[in-house]
């Protein structure tokens, strides 16, 4: 008898499980070596608690009402539960706190290659360590961890969530135009960015240079092109880069148009690419305001990798 399982979930059988386990073990070795401790949190959280993060960016797939009438959700990311743990269980502990996890998150997504509704993520959260040191540490742990899994050709895009908003502020655009431009940018519709810039009354040259800016990616030379209004974001990216060892710095691509789909990022953001896979393996960034929502306003940074995508990329690299 063949019985179905819910859409966007799947069974993992021993051959695949061994490979996934090897990936997790390689990462665990690097994380533990770097002083990170593993945490596990409930798969179910109160919706009101998760809503302190960004439920629109990582939409939960499953909600239930418990016997008291409270709405519970299957967590849609691990950053918010760990922020809760840090503030509830470590409210007076010495900083920084270093946590890692390997856990399922549940999202309302279109199931496709490397993206399921039940999503196995692995990552770290570094709480209480600001920019640039904390960001550099997270990038270092990320690259060393990926290298430990045997992945060869990955690169890490590094951007800053405050860069483009600052550039637009410098132009003195009204809020509604600014919002529309940032929306087009977040959906990576550069034709739409161009249209909205023209609608906001920018000259063609000014609009062209902004569209070009949003697509600047490469070595440190791309930072020279950024307008004065975003000088702070650029200085931050240079500071992080200066702290990286060569093996990590060589992996970094500066990416001025990098936008993550989660709303709580405040500064540096990053995303992991591998030529063997058409989608990013994961990403992360600084969320310096999130812990404040939980009563302990301290800066933090973290990343999450989708284990299935890492597995696909390793398999792809092996096949050449």
């Amino acid at each position, binding site marked *: 008898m063949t019985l179905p399982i819910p859409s966007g979930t799947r069974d993992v059988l021993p051959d695949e499980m061994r490979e996934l386990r090897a990936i997790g073990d390689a990462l665990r070795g690097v994380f533990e070596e770097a002083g990170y401790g593993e945490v596990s949190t409930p798969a179910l959280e109160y919706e009101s608690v998760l809503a302190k993060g960004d439920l629109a960016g990582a939409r939960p797939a499953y909600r239930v009402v418990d016997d008291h009438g409270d709405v519970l959700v299957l967590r849609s990311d691990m950053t918010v539960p760990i922020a809760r743990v840090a503030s509830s269980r470590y409210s007076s502990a010495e900083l920084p706190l270093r946590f890692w996890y390997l856990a399922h998150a549940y999202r309302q997504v*279109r199931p496709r*290659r490397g993206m399921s509704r039940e999503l196995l993520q692995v990552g770290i959260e570094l709480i209480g360590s600001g920019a640039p040191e904390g960001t550099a540490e997270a990038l270092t742990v990320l690259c060393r961890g990926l290298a430990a899994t045997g992945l060869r050709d990955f*690169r890490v*895009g590094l951007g800053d969530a405050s860069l483009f908003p600052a550039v637009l502020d410098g132009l003195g655009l009204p809020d509604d135009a600014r919002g529309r431009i940032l929306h087009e940018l977040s959906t*990576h*519709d*550069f*034709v*739409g960015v*161009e249209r909205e810039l023209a609608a906001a009354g920018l000259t063609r040259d000014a609009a062209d240079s902004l569209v070009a800016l949003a*697509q600047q*990616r*490469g070595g440190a030379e791309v930072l020279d092109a950024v307008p004065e209004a975003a000088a702070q974001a650029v200085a931050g990216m240079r500071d992080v880069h200066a702290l990286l060892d060569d093996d990590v710095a060589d992996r970094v*691509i500066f*990416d001025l148009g990098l936008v993550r789909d989660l709303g709580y990022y405040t500064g540096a953001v990053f995303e992991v*690419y*591998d*030529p063997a*896979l*058409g*989608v*990013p393996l994961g990403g992360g960034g600084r969320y310096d305001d999130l812990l404040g929502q939980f009563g302990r306003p301290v800066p933090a940074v973290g990343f999450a990798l989708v284990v299935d995508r890492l597995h696909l990329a390793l398999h792809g690299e092996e096949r050449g």
Partner: protein
Amino acid sequence: MTPPLTIAVPRGALMGDTLDLLDRLGVDTAEVRANDRKLLFADIGIVTMRPSDVPTYVEAGAADIGITGKDVLTEQSEREVYELLDLHYGFCRMVVASVDGPDPAVEALRRLGIVRIATKYLKTASRYFEATGRQAEIVEVKGSVELAPLTGLAEAIVDLTATGTTMRENGLVEREHLFDSTARLIANPVAHKLKAAAIDDLVARIRDLELTRAG
């Protein structure tokens, strides 16, 4: 030598202009033009497919970049691809149309509270009627949409039209205009980062042709 980029080229109405564009960029498309049935041209990095399949190949990274209509991208708005350029050819309009005379769609909404809309563009049509506060039953058809209002399958259609000739010949008139569609250059997000030099070079050369913006 392996070509630097794999390009998804749409078959059908956009194919001629797309191949002309590639010729002007220095890609020799003679082999593509001569082989109507062959789909993959590895030595020049071209794969040919239906326009609606282009976002699928580009999102998955099976093609690095591709060319397709804005109508396709609007219908498949959930696809994670970068939209890089408006190529300003393949101009079409997405419209609501119904049979000439008193509008049967208005009559249906007034007396029945719901209108039946036949279309190939399910999401575009349902989003549009939802956004304009009207209840619509969206009927999916795969062939000639113009047939639906003539046979009573639906009161109106949502469809793409270039000249309006087919609609006119079937006694249909345009009632509402949703948006204009032109060919767009799209890129895979990872290729956009890791093959940045090749993609930027191509975009710059297309911009230099000055077809990307009129006036």
